[in-house]
Every structure is written in structure tokens, then in C-alpha cells.
């Protein structure tokens, strides 16, 4: 920076504050305008994405209601656009064409090979098992990690037993991923040979989410069965 002795080069503080304030105001306005302008479109996109994912894991479902499982027990419907109360776990109840409960779906996440693997799994209350899962977002290696989507043996893991323990505090048996070919129990996930890390991520994601959610949901079956 040049320092001429003839003219003072430093901007007076008042002018600086005024200009910075002006720039902050302009930037703030632009951001808020963009946020408001895109808000509806973004919410719609998210709603469509959720719907598509839930319909995929609960094929019989024709409509979805969003619920939150409260920390103190009990389930509560979440109105569109509202935020769930603190500590509550979000899940979706799918109802078929006749209004009967077809199953519930919830999200789970765990670290895979590269970044997080986010999945949506479906829980069938009649059989107390996890009937299917689908991937919401993942960055696993193409051809290796993404085999969890298509590998026949891996998909044959489901339905996966997920009974809630009698004291309603956790799952009766934790869902765990085991080495390829060594699955003996119905609550184990047989990993894909050569894609162990991603397989483990799926198992962990389902287990972590199910351990927290299912004990809260199980006592409230009747409330969920009626689609109000």
C-alpha cells in the first residue's frame, strides 16, 4: 500500500462504518430475497423426495403422515411445515388405499467409506421386522460400495428381525453386520464380500436409528393404526 505524505490515505472511521453498513445491508437483502424466493420450491422438493423414498420402502403405502416420537413417550403428528419438538424422533407412517397402516419408515445414518451413508428403512409392525431399506444419500465407491443397492445376497438380508425388548428400552437383539457368509441369526446383516465398510454402515445406521425409535413407537401402535 502506498503511503503518500501529501494526502491522508486512511479512510475516516465514520465513512468506513457507513460504507460497511451499506454493504452489509445490500448483502443481507440479497440473501433474504433469495431465501424467501426459493423457500416454497425447496420445501416442495424435499416433500417430493421424502414421499418418493417412503413409497419405495413401503410399496403398499398410498399416503404418508409425518409423526414425531416424543422423548417422554407417545407419538404426535407433525403438521406440514412445523418443527418437531426437541429430542423427538421423526418417522413416517404409510397408509394404504384403504386407510390401513402399511408400515412406518425412518431415517438412519452412519459413516461409510467416504462420508455419511443416509438410509430410509421400513418397519413392519405386524411381523416386528425391518422389511426394506433404500439409500437417501451416499458417496460410496461406484461398483464396490454401491453394490448395497443391487447385490441379491445383501437384499436377501431383509426382512430383518427387529423385536423390541420386553422392558421397552431397546431392541431385543442389536442389529449387527457380520462377515459375508457367517449370518446365523435373523437379526444379523450378512455383509457383501469386498464391500464390508459400506455394508457395516447400513447395519449401523439401521441399528442406531431402530434402537432409539422402535421402543418409543411399539407402545403406540393403536394410535398409529387409525389414520385421522
Amino acid at each position, binding site marked *: 500500500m502506498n503511503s503518500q505524505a501529501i494526502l491522508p490515505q486512511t479512510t475516516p472511521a465514520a465513512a468506513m462504518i457507513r460504507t460497511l453498513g451499506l454493504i452489509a445491508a445490500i*448483502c443481507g437483502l440479497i*440473501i*433474504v430475497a433469495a*431465501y424467501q424466493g426459493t423457500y416454497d420450491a425447496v420445501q416442495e422438493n424435499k416433500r417430493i423426495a421424502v414421499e418418493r423414498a417412503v413409497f419405495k420402502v413401503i410399496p403398499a403405502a398410498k399416503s404418508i403422515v409425518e409423526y414425531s416420537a416424543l422423548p417422554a413417550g407417545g407419538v404426535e403428528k407433525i403438521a406440514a411445515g412445523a418443527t418437531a419438538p426437541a429430542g423427538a424422533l421423526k418417522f413416517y407412517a404409510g397408509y394404504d388405499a384403504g386407510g390401513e397402516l402399511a408400515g412406518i419408515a425412518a431415517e438412519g*445414518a*452412519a*459413516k461409510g*467409506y*467416504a*462420508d*455419511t451413508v443416509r438410509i430410509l428403512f421400513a418397519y413392519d409392525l405386524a411381523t416386528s421386522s425391518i422389511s426394506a431399506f433404500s439409500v437417501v444419500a451416499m458417496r460410496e465407491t461406484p461398483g464396490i460400495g454401491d453394490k448395497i443397492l443391487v447385490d441379491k445376497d445383501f437384499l436377501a438380508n431383509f426382512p430383518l428381525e427387529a423385536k423390541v425388548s420386553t422392558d421397552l428400552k431397546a431392541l431385543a437383539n442389536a442389529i449387527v453386520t457380520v462377515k459375508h457368509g457367517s449370518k446365523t441369526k435373523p437379526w444379523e446383516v450378512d455383509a457383501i464380500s469386498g464391500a*464390508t*465398510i459400506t455394508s*457395516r454402515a447400513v447395519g449401523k445406521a439401521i441399528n*442406531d436409528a431402530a434402537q432409539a425409535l422402535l421402543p418409543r413407537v411399539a407402545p403406540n401402535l393403536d394410535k398409529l393404526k387409525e389414520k385421522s
Partner: protein
Amino acid sequence: MHESAAYIFVNALLANNFVLAMFLGLCPFLGVSGKLDTAFPMGVATTFVMLVASLCAYGLNLLLTAFQLEFLRLISYIVIIASSVQLVEMVLKKYSPGLFRALGIYLPLITTNCAVLGVALFQTAREYDFVQSMAFSFGGGAGFTLALVLMASVRERLQLSDVPSVAQGTALSLMLAGILSLAFMGFAGLGG
């Protein structure tokens, strides 16, 4: 998510190294890794800024979420980072002028280092708690320093070898980085 701090640290250091696997902090990685003497202090300075940024980002995020001002997240993060770098510059200038001169222009450039903003953004996206965030930024910074030091050591050696002139410069650094990245892929699954 429920990962232990130790796992997050080791993961950020090796398997998901910030430079070689996540592509963060590449500009200084290619620019400063010519000499070992500048590479190591640069890594340490960046790690320090990353720790400060991670700390501030955690606090800022709590505030922004409480007031539902998420759309201001990016701006507030970057302002905090710019201020932290300014702070580090002033501290270094006062207490270690030799180091300040050695780092030269690269010190203010830490502001535009993707790794620093990357730490803040990733820890927010993964919803890490305080301890996990600290482990993540410390591991990330250590991994950045590790990659920088490795690169600098190899490049110093290569100055004495017979590299075809058409490949010298950035092309060679990139090829080197590719080999390093390939090697680090071997750490996959470590600790988890």
C-alpha cells in the same frame, strides 16, 4: 452420529485425509509444499486456525439455529475465519516475527483455504457435538500437515532427479499427489 472422538480423529488424519481424500486445502498443498522448512509451520498455522474456526463455528451454529437464521450460516462462518486469520497474523507478528516473515503471503491466504471452511461446513452437516468437532478439526489439521510434509520431502528429493522438463512443476506435483492419495486409500476402515 455416534462415533467416538478417537475414531473421528484417526479417520480425518488418515483414511479420509483432508487433502488426499477430501480434496480440501489443495491450493496451499500445491503451492507451499516445495520446501520442508515452510511446509511444516504452514501446516501448524493452518491446524491452529482450523481449531479456532471449528470452535467458533460450533458456537455460531448453536446461536443461528436458536434464532432460526440458518441462511446467514455461510457468511458468518467466513467472517469468523477471516477474523481468526487476522488474529493469528497479529499474534505471530508480535511473538514470532521470524516465522511471520517466513510464511509471508501464505498466512493471509489461510482464509481462502478450503480446509478451514470445510471443517466448519462438514462438522455442521454431520451434526458433530463439541468433542467430536474438536477431534475432527484437530485430525483434519494434522492430516493436512502430514500430507504437506510428505509432499515437501518428496519434492525436495525430486529436485535432484532427472525429471523430463515437460513434466516439471505442477504436473509432477499432481502425479505425486495421486500416488500419495492412492497409498492413503490403504487406510480405509482403520479404527472402524
